[in-house]
């Protein structure tokens, strides 16, 4: 066994496998209740059942 392999080997002789770092992209707008995803928007482009800021502002302007 080469010196480097000796250094990386677990007890019992199996080589240590270095963990792989993976990057996962998370988009808050997709999953954290941000933005309006309800399909009941009226023709004025707002949703009267949505509590989010953009729909609330549009609703206030319209009423």
């Amino acid at each position, binding site marked *: 066994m080469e010196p480097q392999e000796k250094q990386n080997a677990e007890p019992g002789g199996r080589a240590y496998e270095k963990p792989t770092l993976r990057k996962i992209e998370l988009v808050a707008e997709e*999953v954290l*209740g941000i933005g309006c*995803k309800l399909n009941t928007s009226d023709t004025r482009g707002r949703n009267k059942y949505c*509590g989010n800021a953009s729909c609330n502002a549009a609703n206030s302007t319209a009423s």
Partner: protein
Amino acid sequence: MRSDIAIAGVGFHVRCDAGPVLPIAGAAYEQFAASLAPESSDVEVLLDLTGKPGTRPTGELFDSGNWTLYGDEAGYQLELGETVASWDRAVKSATIYCGEEWRRERVGPAGVAHPLGYPLDQLLLMHHLASRQGVLLHAAGAEIRGQALIFPGRSGSGKTTLSANLVHHQAIRLLSDDRMVVRKLGGTFWSFGTPWPGDAGVAVNRGAPLAAICFISHAPRNGITRLSPRAAAERLLPAASIPWYDPSILPDVLDSCEELVAAVPAYELAFAPTPDVGAFLDSFVP
């Protein structure tokens, strides 16, 4: 009057001391309206029209731009415009405080408008599920012969297209085209429809044992490939409503996701946007 709501078996009993609470508005919520005895509900929700909470939890957890969440050892407080909602750490009771403008517009002789609605109900459910082996997913879902399949994917991945092509297949019952809940009940993972549909408008209050997780992609022809739990976890996390901002409950949710991909087989479903995908899935499910 059915002023309570039940989503994925989680019951929200809603009351207001100032008068009867009207049923929640919106066609998508119709199937989710319920009439629950307080002792049998999971979350007791009180609408308070008398003012705002006196204090705010000490830590700001997350500012989404639409709402801001604060939390400490005692509980959480969500500020959504004029509305403030607070709940305990166990998410068994919540109080919603509504401002003067809300009271003027939504309190009348027939009763008080329902205080829950998107996004507050979704956020409350997300937190309730976090410590109870459950998770909300950005996914379409369907039931075939008593078994649920979920189709997680980002906006534009094809959930609505898939749903539109499955809707007429006689053996397939659509549950949602946008949000599904997965919960571990009695040792088995189940999946349920929710009242938050996508463009296809599917919102069915029904659940079934979860047979498969199918990550979808557009393709010229239908095909299905098994994924390892590790690959499934990589694709599941971006589709899961996980409270990344709260380290006190994050481990529980991640544990649930890990258990889910270990217990339920996952696949890559490449599908062609035609109704043939219904027959394809029908033949795939035993």
